[in-house]
């Protein structure tokens, strides 16, 4: 089997396993896994910018929230039905990430991190400021009647799982295709040595801009789906914490690996889920994990696997 066929077989296999799991998982873990798949889609989007292009953004919550509120406000205030509302969320994510990219890509390194952090914070505060429409921290519930997509009630656990699987599967496969395509190879080359890529005649700015818009739009798709599937949109999804989470998931799972974001999300979700039974200070786990990962395993779980077992792992 060629490397490409093996890669597609592996990732297709993961999706097949996730499909099969819905029939055997108990209700609690069934619900968790649906949530993890949506959040993992967010991490997949983050990984395209951070893992493959080497741009560390601290403001992805802005894109997640753009999708969530683009969808949520569309339903709440424009009276949209779910399909166009989802589309509105995606468009909002693309526009916001494109706009931020135009500004933030003028900087590099630490400045890029701070600029994205600041604009995301401004976005979060803006959501609070327009509390009249967004209901601020408290957020708003999207009623069950407003969550019927093409006759399918997304508040039903089975449908929800299936919708999450479709979202995650398409994000995963898209990301696999992208990083194996010439465009993705240029992104990796930019990550490794920007000057050399520039010298070879590639337009760095355009590639980074495209990577950021793709990454932001996937994050927005995850945000919009999260709101629609779980029936809630709130400002906490725009807070700094939700910018840190995808970074943490991707670092844990392995930056620059296609499956890493899912593995990282899965592990961290259950780690926090287990610890929240013991203490309310569950973010402690996130902090400790961040420090340990940067210190001892900057490659993450899948990165280690790639180093030790399968060097061609995409």
């Amino acid at each position, binding site marked *: 089997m060629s490397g490409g066929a093996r890669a597609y077989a592996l990732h297709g296999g993961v999706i097949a396993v996730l499909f099969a799991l819905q029939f055997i998982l108990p209700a609690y873990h069934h619900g968790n896994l649906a949530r993890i798949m949506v959040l993992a889609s967010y991490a997949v989007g983050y990984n395209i910018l951070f893992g493959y292009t080497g741009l*560390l953004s601290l403001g992805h919550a802005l894109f997640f929230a753009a999708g969530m509120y683009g969808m949520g406000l569309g339903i709440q205030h424009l009276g949209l039905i779910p399909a166009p509302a989802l589309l509105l969320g995606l468009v909002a994510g693309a526009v916001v990430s494109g706009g931020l990219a135009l*500004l*933030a890509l003028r*900087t590099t390194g630490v400045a890029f*991190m701070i600029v994205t952090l*600041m604009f995301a914070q401004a976005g979060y*505060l803006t959501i*609070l400021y327009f509390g009249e429409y967004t209901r601020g921290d408290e957020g708003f519930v999207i009623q069950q009647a407003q969550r019927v997509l093409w006759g399918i009630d997304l508040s039903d656990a089975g449908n929800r799982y299936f919708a999450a699987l479709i979202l995650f599967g398409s994000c995963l496969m898209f990301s696999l295709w992208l990083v194996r395509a010439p465009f993705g190879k240029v992104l990796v080359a930019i990550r490794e040595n920007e000057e050399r890529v520039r010298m070879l005649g590639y337009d760095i700015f355009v590639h980074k801009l495209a990577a950021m818009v793709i990454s932001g739009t996937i994050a927005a798709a995850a945000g919009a789906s999260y709101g629609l599937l779980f029936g809630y949109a709130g400002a906490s999804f725009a807070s700094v914490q939700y910018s840190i989470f995808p970074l943490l998931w991707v670092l844990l799972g392995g930056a620059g690996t296609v499956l890493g974001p899912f593995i990282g999300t899965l592990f961290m979700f259950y780690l926090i889920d287990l610890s929240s039974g013991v203490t309310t200070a569950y973010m402690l786990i996130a*902090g400790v994990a961040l420090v340990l990962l*940067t210190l001892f395993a900057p490659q993450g779980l899948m990165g280690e696997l790639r180093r030790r077992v399968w060097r061609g792992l995409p």
Partner: protein
Amino acid sequence: MPGNPCARMDLGPYIVLASLEGAITAAVLALTAVGLSLVFGVMRVVNIAHGEFFMLGAVIAWWIAHMLGGHPAIGFAVALVAAPLIVGALAVAADMTILKRLNYDPERTIVATIGVLYIIQQMTLMGYGPDARPVEPPFNTRLAIPWFEHGADGWAMIWPWGLGTTSYKLAVIGAAVVLLCGVWLLMSRTRFGLVMRATQADRDMAQAFGIPVERVYALVFGLGAALAALAGVLIVPIQQAHYLMGADPLLLSFIVVIIGGLGSLPGTVLAAVLIGLSDGIISVFFSPTLAKILATLLVGLVLVFRPQGLFGARSG
């Protein structure tokens, strides 16, 4: 309400009051931001956990005051010395165990300090709890401020209701000025300051001349954290100690350090005064959320379009 000058407050006294509050913000902010700026200037790393050192200072001050009991001045005086030392030692330990191993790589350091932020914040939540707790100021005489008004019988001195401050608040401003002068003397007049400036100018050259760069880094990180903790101790009698109180000082310090020009101490202090005063005045007239939105956008835009800061000179 004519004939009852005590019951109203015109715009003038209002602005005086707002500037006074602003001056206190500026004083505390300058201390915190100078700590952040020092770390950035010498070590070239951004410490996201800086606000948590501020918070730790405040929480330790409460803890010491609570343990010692007695006259509030005793606990406060002990806290003023002990809190910066404890927090500084903690920061030195964090530097030696974490930052040094990362070789002060700027991006990885940011990620690691985000981790440190959550560790400190959540440990405080576990140990200290989610409540906001007050610390009694060591002295707290109310001082009313007179106002001059042109009435029917010429200029008259009145004492508008609500226009006043406390001796403690004035002392905070004084203490911050003294401390900032101390930092300046340390940087410009002592051997340690010289070593710090040498390391800032050229790390490798400093190392070649036998300066123990790693020890300097650890001490600078500790000093920066100690300054933040001192600011926390000073503010806690005015504002209560709470485990989430580090977020605002962090954001404001960022704004100040970036606008003042990264790593420039005079620029940092100037920006702190400007931001502190305008924050006090703006939040009287606008919603605090709107003020914060404008402030964060300003930082982002300054970094994009004028990365050397508004006061910094363009270098190279």
